[in-house]
């Protein structure tokens, strides 16, 4: 990246403003100028907020924590795309060099019945936490570490589990899905543990409980459009959803739980 090429942008932002969960919201237009192309998207919002605070207006509420693509809190819909135009990228890792001088950028919160808006761009994603809780624990023996070669995990299986474990729980899959389905998220969690020896003891119970909670939280049904996979910053694959379907059918038909 050639830093000498950094430029300054003047942008028009149309941002969803909503004072609280019960209030009605709408897009509000703001101008920002002198935005460096080296800034991240959230830094651009910081600039806007300083501008708003200086003029006595309420700053735009948005969620963020790590700003390095691992915590999963920062998701917003940018010009109609969850986490913006780049694939495999969170909002905090999106850079302003992806935009051009004079652009208009529409910024909306995740929308889904299961993710009620808290304020402005912040939504309540605790439905995901409840799904995770429903998944329960894994039974692991305490005591001395077992001999490493007693439980062999082939490299490709370990890779699949690791790839599924990469899900950061951001909710972009739900936000980008026309059905607001959480199947990609749940499938990542279920596939991750179902692939490993540690996950075997509670394998059936876990998938049944997580799917039941997913439905109870009012997420929609998967119709295999693949929008989630394209929006996912952790590049979770649709093959996990097929695996979830297999795990679920097997547990529903054959397990005693």
């Amino acid at each position, binding site marked *: 990246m050639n830093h000498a090429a950094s430029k300054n942008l003047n942008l028009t932002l149309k941002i969803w403003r909503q004072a609280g969960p019960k209030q009605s919201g709408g897009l509000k237009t703001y101008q920002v100028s002198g935005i460096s192309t080296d800034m991240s998207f959230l830094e651009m919002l910081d600039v806007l907020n300083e501008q708003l605070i200086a003029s006595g207006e309420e700053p735009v509420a948005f969620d963020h924590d790590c700003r390095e693509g691992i915590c999963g809190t920062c998701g917003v819909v940018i010009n109609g795309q969850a986490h913006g135009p780049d694939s495999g990228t969170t909002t905090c890792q999106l850079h302003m060099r992806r935009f051009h001088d004079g652009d208009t950028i529409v910024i909306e919160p995740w929308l889904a019945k299961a993710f009620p808006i808290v304020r402005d761009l912040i939504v309540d994603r605790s439905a995901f936490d409840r799904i995770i809780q429903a998944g329960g624990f894994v039974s692991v023996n305490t005591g001395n570490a077992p001999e490493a070669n007693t439980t062999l995990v082939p490299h490709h299986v370990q890779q699949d589990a690791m790839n599924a474990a990469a899900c950061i729980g951001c909710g972009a899959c739900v936000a980008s899905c026309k059905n607001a389905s959480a199947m990609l998220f749940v499938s990542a969690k279920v596939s991750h543990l179902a692939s490993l020896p540690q996950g075997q003891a509670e394998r059936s119970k876990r998938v049944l409980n997580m799917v039941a909670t997913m439905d109870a939280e009012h997420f929609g049904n998967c119709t295999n459009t693949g929008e989630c996979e394209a929006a996912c910053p952790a590049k979770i694959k649709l093959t996990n959803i*097929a695996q979830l*379907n297999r795990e679920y059918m097997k547990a529903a038909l054959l397990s005693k739980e």
Partner: protein
Amino acid sequence: MGVTGLLLCGFLVAHLAGNLLLFMGAKPFNEYAHALHSQWELLAVAEFGLVVLFLAHVYLAVATTIGNYRARRDFYVLKQSKVPGRIIGANSWMFASGSVVLGFVILHLIDLRLGLRSSLQYLPETDLEAPFKNTLAAISDPISRVVYFVGVIVLGVHLSHGFASAFQSLGLNHPKYTPLIKIIGKIFGVIIAVGFASIVVFVPGMWR
């Protein structure tokens, strides 16, 4: 949804194979129809099964669509796909395309299963020529001809997503076979659409 859809695909293959006999003329088609009808016990079971499958497919579609609509609840002011190259795909229109196909199937049943169109001059079932003549009458009728044509083309679009989607829903995703299943799904959609459409386009002109 996937199970009922795939089983209905099986019916489509048999139905298309039988109907392509229309290109061979009255005799082969009538013989085929009479052979089919002579097995009336089996036919009754098959027809009943087909109705159950079809209604189950429609019921599941309506139930999932309502559930999904409620789950989505709010729509974005601006929405763009992140799937590379996708502007608008068959996958987003399954309910709409399914509804068009349902409308077509209803007319098709009125025309040829129930024989209720007063504008068509049906031969009585006892007439040996009835299967061919009645089919020809229906697909020569301008309204039916257009509706059938649109119906089967939209059906092809429906299948181009539905076929492969059913496998994924059933958990049948495999690095070796899934790309093939996707291609077969598209080809299947084209074959069904072109196969049935060719009948309404060419057959009325061939046997005037």
